[in-house]
């Protein structure tokens, strides 16, 4: 397999709303940042791939306007996935593996502020049996959390601990939307949003964008002093129906991790796309992460969750740890769909 690395990562300052900017106005500075880090222009990029979703914006073909921020002239080799940008990165990685590209620009963005995200996400569900009931995303995550509590895998105190730890970590993350937390005991006095989840168990709703530059072999070495090499990447899918899954486990995450080689050697850092505290419990178990692993040093999706970009940001954050020498081998995870239906795992390493 060809050596491919993340050589640049940029993201916006994630915010609850971004009224003053259109999608392209939010995205463009992030693209400039990522390309600027490696001194490349759009025309020097061999392949571009993005991830976004029309349902967030409430407009069909919303990604076509975002393309304005790329400067796709002369015409570029380009594609788009209607899901989290982590899958756009996967598509770009495969493109480089074919040998047809040496470099790739991957970006994604999501503005959750224009709509009611909890209701919007209910449109992802089985359109015959489930969507007509409008179960919202927090409620579904709460079902999963209760299943974990019933199974003895966690309790509300430990979930609050995950929230406090994540937002505490985010204090060092200038892009985070939420970067502080009251202590655990205080968190537990709050009302439930949907029992057993309180506000602190849920991700902030907000807007943001991210971009990553990938490069192969010597090109990566030329562009970046400490490339974050993608040693493996895989993604897997669960059945759609919540009632046929074991919500306390994530076999698709485990399988993706196996295929990505995550279990071949220990990782020191993991960036998990767990929008809800309870989902970190599921993922830690599936990925066999012990306490020695630094989980979500960025604060994770609990610190900023720009939908459609939050998964790509996990890969970017894991790579950034390697870029700055804070990690030698890191795992990045992204998810899509209700209650962790689809999961992607990437294993990144610095030069040995």
């Amino acid at each position: 397999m060809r050596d491919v690395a993340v050589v640049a990562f940029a993201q916006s300052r994630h915010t609850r709303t971004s009224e003053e900017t259109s999608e392209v106005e939010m995205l463009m500075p992030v693209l400039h940042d990522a390309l600027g880090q490696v001194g490349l222009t759009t025309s020097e990029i061999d392949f571009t791939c993005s991830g976004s979703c029309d349902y967030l914006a409430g407009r069909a073909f919303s990604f076509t306007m975002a393309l304005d921020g790329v400067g796709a002239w002369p015409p570029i080799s380009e594609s788009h996935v209607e899901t989290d940008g982590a899958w756009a990165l996967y598509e770009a990685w495969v493109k480089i593996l074919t040998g047809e590209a040496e470099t790739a620009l991957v970006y994604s963005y999501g503005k959750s502020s224009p709509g009611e995200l909890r209701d919007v996400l209910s449109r992802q569900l089985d359109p015959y049996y489930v969507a007509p009931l409008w179960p919202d995303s927090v409620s579904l995550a709460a079902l999963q959390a209760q299943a974990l509590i019933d199974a003895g895998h966690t309790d509300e105190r430990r979930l609050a601990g995950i929230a406090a730890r994540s937002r505490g970590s985010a204090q060092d993350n200038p892009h985070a939307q939420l970067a502080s937390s009251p202590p655990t005991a205080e968190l537990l006095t709050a009302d439930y949003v949907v029992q057993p989840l309180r506000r602190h168990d849920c991700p902030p709703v907000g807007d943001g964008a991210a971009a990553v530059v990938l490069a192969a072999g010597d090109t990566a070495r030329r562009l970046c002093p400490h490339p974050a090499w993608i040693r493996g990447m895989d993604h897997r899918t669960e059945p759609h129906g919540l009632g046929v899954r074991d919500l306390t486990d994530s076999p698709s995450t485990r399988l993706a991790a196996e295929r990505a080689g995550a279990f071949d050697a220990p990782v020191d850092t993991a960036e998990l796309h767990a929008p809800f505290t309870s989902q970190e419990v599921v993922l830690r178990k599936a990925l066999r992460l012990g306490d020695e692993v630094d989980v979500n040093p960025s604060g994770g999706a609990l610190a900023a969750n720009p939908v459609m970009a939050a998964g790509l940001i996990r890969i970017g954050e894991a790579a950034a740890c390697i870029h700055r020498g804070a990690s030698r081998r890191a795992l990045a995870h992204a998810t899509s769909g209700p209650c962790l239906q689809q999961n992607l795992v990437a294993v990144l390493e610095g030069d040995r």
Partner: protein
Amino acid sequence: MPDVLSAPLVVEFPFTRSLGPVQSAFLTGLRERSVLGVRTADGRVLVPPAEYDPVTAEEIRELVEVGTAGTVTAWAWNPQPRPCQPLDRAFAWVLVRLDGADTALLHALDAPGGAQSVRTGMRVRIRWALEREGAITDIACFEPDDDGPTTHEARPHSGEFADPVTGITAPARLDYTYFPGRAQSRYITALAGRKTIGERCPSCRKVYVPPRGACPTCGVATDEQVEVGPRGTVTTFCVVNIKAKNVDIEVPYVYVHIALDGADLALHGRIGGIPYDQVRMGMRVEPVWTEGGRHPDHYRPTGEPDADYDSYRELL
């Protein structure tokens, strides 16, 4: 005027969903107050009935009837229901494994005893909607079933009903707030004064109308405002003979691309004040505003001589 604009955007449609045979049997069954599942090749009973086995992907068509009471396998107390959810008072979302089934169905549980009365493993039964039409909402919700455990084996069922349901209408409305962003806000605000303000790319110097925030060929922000028009040249057009949805204009009318003087690409509009069959490429036009209109109502000929083809072919 505020610096940036916003406005409500409603996305609403009554989707018409046709059903496959398994879904048709299940939803018709609900109308008749019976619950059908499907049996997989390895003997599991799936309720609600999937059309395809989640494990093997095989098509499944063997229908069975299961009980209308069951056991809660997971729950979440929802103190503040959202607008379209099954109950308008606090309720529990539940996954219920109906008697005779091996998988669970998602629905609402009406639990007057509150969150503390709900637990995993509790017995619940279906409360049927008074008016049923063949939809998942024919189950109004579940309710606690104090009668205790019953055993109900899944029984074969033909899936045949009189007057089966073959489709559902699934209305969906989502409310958004639309933010056009800085550049478009500047443009729209200027239109209120009947001025058309384009923006120039600092890199290629082209003037964009309407501006969308970025020069799409250079990928940089446009920020220098330039007034263009009001006159312009018709670059190309078509004669519209059928009424477009949401557009209240008598046909035929002429839909045109107009390069306003000073702009580097054409915008779209309609021509009036001249018979439709006399509109020409190269015709010189100017906007006609109506009271309260955000955009020009239409454009009309200025009477100037037509522009040379070569003068606008790059804008075509």
